[in-house]
């Protein structure tokens, strides 16, 4: 008896070892959609972290540049010591310190633009009455002051430096340093811009399997669009960083799928989708019980209502269309770096960066005489994709604050929307963004 028992145990143990049965279709999507919900907080955390990093960097850069802009240079500190006024070399005795040309007449109010090697330009607006020997502005190692030419009696702008101070021969005890009424205004670093673009959307197929090729060959790009608002911060004279929020709507037309209406009276499923359509971006599941779908000469429509079971013509279903439109909408959070190549009335920028794209809606429909009829949804799409973008921006300055922008941009999605066929189909898009920006 024991041997028989052992035999029957062994029979089942060995017989069922490594036994495999393919699970029914749809289970995978059910599982992954349930897991997707669980993993969303993690994704949102990543997005939140990225936003925090960008904002922190922007803030720190802003603070740093402000500090650098207003940090007094060492020479200024020296000149501001009231106890021992500096001993200056008389520039008139040494022609090398004379600036080329005269500044005559000197106005009571003038703008002097200074720029040091390691800081952004700061516009110094000086509103004071100059007197001979008064220092207008002091750079890191040099200063300028006014004096009267003894021979011509004209006011001239003179420069001095620390070496000159060290070897001073002539004293100016009543020299006035750094006018107290000097007002400085920083250059506008922030700007907000609104952009929009029609977009051409397509995809690269890196796979070699026949199914993915068949799927992509019958899919055509629909006119898509993208637009939104972005803030940019000028890090230095040439570099600026930009972030914001964009909304993108991408779409494609799937040819060779016939749709019929009036199927509701024949369908017997309760809740489950009647048809599945394989596409390069994922599997479309119908949610409209009135729709019957069939494919022209391909097996990309999966259904229990096959040709041998149900004939839409015999059932007198109404033909609707022979293509489906697939649409995805994304909220984009870009982090873009701009490099200014040309800074004139028309500026030219190089643009590059990354964007997080959060899927906010997807729909599949068919359009008849301009009216959209809902078919279903594409399942299994990645809720979050990462895209890289590269472009060139042209900026026409209408005024000091307002400018028109034109940015042809190529965008490549680093991770695919879906992996339906085992191939990696990477979407890309090209758009010419146009809009206005306002500096503040």
């Amino acid at each position: 008896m024991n041997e028989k028992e052992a035999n029957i145990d062994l029979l089942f143990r060995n017989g069922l070892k490594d036994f495999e049965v393919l699970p029914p279709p749809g289970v995978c999507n059910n599982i992954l959609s349930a897991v997707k919900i669980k993993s969303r907080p993690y994704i949102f955390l990543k997005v939140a972290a990225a936003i925090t990093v960008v904002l922190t960097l922007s803030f720190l850069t802003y603070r740093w540049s402000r500090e650098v802009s207003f940090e007094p240079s060492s020479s200024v500190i020296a000149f501001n010591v009231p106890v021992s006024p500096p001993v200056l070399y008389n520039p008139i005795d040494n022609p090398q310190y004379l600036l080329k040309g005269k500044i005559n007449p000197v106005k009571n109010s003038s703008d002097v633009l200074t720029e040091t090697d390691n800081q952004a330009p700061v516009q110094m607006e000086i509103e004071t009455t100059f007197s001979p020997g008064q220092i207008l502005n002091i750079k890191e190692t040099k200063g300028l002051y006014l004096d009267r030419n003894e021979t011509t009696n004209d006011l001239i702008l003179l420069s001095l430096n620390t070496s000159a101070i060290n070897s001073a021969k002539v004293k100016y005890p009543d020299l006035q340093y750094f006018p107290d009424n000097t007002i400085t205004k920083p250059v506008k670093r922030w700007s907000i811009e609104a952009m929009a673009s029609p977009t051409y959307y397509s995809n690269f197929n890196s796979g070699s399997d026949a199914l993915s090729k068949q799927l992509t060959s019958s899919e055509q790009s629909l006119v898509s669009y993208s637009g939104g608002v972005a803030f940019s911060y000028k890090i230095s004279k040439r570099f600026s960083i930009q972030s914001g929020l964009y909304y993108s709507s991408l779409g494609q037309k799937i040819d060779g799928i016939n749709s019929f209406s009036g199927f509701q009276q024949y369908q017997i499923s309760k809740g489950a989708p009647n048809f599945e359509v394989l596409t390069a971006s994922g599997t479309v599941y119908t949610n409209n019980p009135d729709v019957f779908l069939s494919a022209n000469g391909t097996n990309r429509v999966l259904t229990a209502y096959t040709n041998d079971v149900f004939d839409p013509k015999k059932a007198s279903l109404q033909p609707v269309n022979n293509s489906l439109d697939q649409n995805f909408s994304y909220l984009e959070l870009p982090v873009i770096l701009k490099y200014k190549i040309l800074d004139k009335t028309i500026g030219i920028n190089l643009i590059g960066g990354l964007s997080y794209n959060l899927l906010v809606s997807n729909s599949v429909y068919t359009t008849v005489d301009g009216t959209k009829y809902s078919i279903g949804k594409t399942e299994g799409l990645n809720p979050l994709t990462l895209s890289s973008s590269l472009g060139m921006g042209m900026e026409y300055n209408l005024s000091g604050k307002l400018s028109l922008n034109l940015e042809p941009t190529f965008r490549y999605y680093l991770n695919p929307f879906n992996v339906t066929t085992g191939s990696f189909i990477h979407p890309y898009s090209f758009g010419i963004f146009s809009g206005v920006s306002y500096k503040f």
Partner: protein
Amino acid sequence: MSEIKKIIKGCLAGNRRDQELLYRRHAAKLYAVCLQYSGNDEEARDILQEGFIKIFENLEHYKYEGSFEGWMRRITVNTALEKFRSRHNLYRVDDIDTIQEPDAEPDNQDYAGLEANDLLEIIRELPTKYRMVFNLYAIEGYSHNEISKMVNITEGTSKSNLSRARVILQRRVGSYTGIKKKVANE
């Protein structure tokens, strides 16, 4: 880093492609386990779904010690047991007690020609309690003491259920083999 480690890390990062890859690699084997523990396809599908969700949710606890497939199988079996325990009270007593035991031991011990599909069909015809105990003891290798705790029965009941399961299986295997031989001869 091994490929499975990469896939697991991708799953933990919420990478959809890796999750799908993990599913496609192991779903067929785990679905066979689910069918083995369930009386119908719908229940097997539910077990597979719940089991895989647990696998994804608990991936961070996998210590990369021992077989990953074995780890997944244990989760799937436990899911099947949970389902069994939750429904256990709903089974009528006579579901089990009215099972007619075979009159005699089967003579035919020639199991040749039986395929995995046949074995699965036979095992699924067992009453739920017998099927659970037989699977856990004969296939998974648990002791009666462990089974008694897993299924909430006494050790004696576990032994008794196993014994009854074996008798039923022997008889059905015998009749299956006979039918197959008859078909082959014709």
